């Protein structure tokens, strides 16, 4: 699985040559008509300012509002799913696009405006300079910006503990969707990526594939519009489903490797 991007990564230990890399900014959008325009414009503006080769790929997960009309007019690559696949399925569609079209990195940015475009260079630099395969934008390394509710933070600590127990990696913000992966990881996730609540489970997949994972501190905003994919009643289901998924993914991948 050697490719040009991983070789490039190794050579660039000191200089940040971000302009060299083609980056796919994958924005999953489900009923995000209020926020999507500014999210896409912010990324494009940043790319122009910092001279980064970023293409914004909006994956519309069969929205019922006018998301599809909006993204056909703004400056982005619009991918419209014919049926609703859930966040994981939408993001994976973006991964497949990025893999097919030869991007070096894919960075996932939520369509609701939680992830500020200004933090993107920090994440890219971390991947390039630290020679990392996966970089996660974390809210909890230094506590700045929107911190989420107490209940959610308990859930996040729980996943931190579970990840640590199973694969030994400590990820502070394992539910963060603000993450960058390189081409090596793209080949894996375009084959297998969880459908619902994919973030904590994906970390297990990355760890068991021996990818180098890093976390950088970013600040996040509260959502700009739309509703969270996780409601209050769904929280218990979320914990249960993700726990099961993590444990079974762990067992499945462990046995495959033996």
């Amino acid at each position, binding site marked *: 699985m050697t490719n040009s991007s991983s070789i490039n990564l190794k050579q660039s230990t000191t200089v940040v040559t971000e302009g060299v890399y083609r980056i796919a900014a994958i924005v999953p959008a489900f009923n995000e008509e209020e926020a999507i325009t500014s999210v896409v414009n912010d990324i494009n503006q940043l790319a122009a300012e910092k001279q980064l080769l970023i293409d914004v790929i909006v*994956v519309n997960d069969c929205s019922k509002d006018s998301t599809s009309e909006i993204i056909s007019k703004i400056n982005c*690559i*619009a*991918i*419209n*799913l*014919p*049926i609703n*696949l859930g966040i994981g*399925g939408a993001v*994976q*569609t973006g991964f*497949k*696009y990025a893999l*097919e079209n030869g991007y070096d990195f894919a960075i996932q940015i939520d369509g609701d405006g939680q992830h500020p475009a200004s933090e993107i260079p920090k994440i890219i630099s971390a991947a390039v300079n630290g020679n990392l395969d996966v970089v996660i934008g974390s809210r909890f390394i230094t506590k700045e910006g929107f911190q989420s509710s107490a209940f959610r933070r308990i859930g996040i600590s729980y996943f931190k503990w579970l990840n640590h127990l199973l694969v030994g990696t400590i990820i502070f913000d394992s539910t963060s969707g603000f993450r960058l992966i390189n081409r090596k990881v793209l080949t894996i996730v375009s084959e297998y990526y969880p*459908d619902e609540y994919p973030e904590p489970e994906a970390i297990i997949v990355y760890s068991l594939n021996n990818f180098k994972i890093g976390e950088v501190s970013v600040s996040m905003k509260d959502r700009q519009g739309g509703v969270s994919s996780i409601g209050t009643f769904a929280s218990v289901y979320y914990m249960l489903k993700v726990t099961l998924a993590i444990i079974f993914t762990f067992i499945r991948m462990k046995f495959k490797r033996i």
Partner: protein
Amino acid sequence: MVKIQIIAILVSLLFLLYIVRLIIRGKLREEYSIVWIVCTTILILFSLWRDGLELIADFVGVYEAPNLVFTGAIFAILIYLLHLSIVVSKLHSQNKQLAQEIALLKNKISEKSKV
């Protein structure tokens, strides 16, 4: 032959007929019909041969023969439900792949028509 036997045989036969009709019309795939045909055949068999049920119950150590029927039926239903869940999971993942392919192809076509 008692009334309930006749009723059981009639219902089972009608059921079998309905399954055959579904297969002929292409509404039920053969692989999913096997289990139904087997179940109906067993039903017909024990409607005709009532002593057989008592014999088997006695053999496996079940005191009340009807309990054997319930146990067997519930077990069969559970297994079949699990089978259906597996089928649904497979369809789910195939459906996802198809949707993703379609979305990517639609994008490719619209990119081409722009140029």
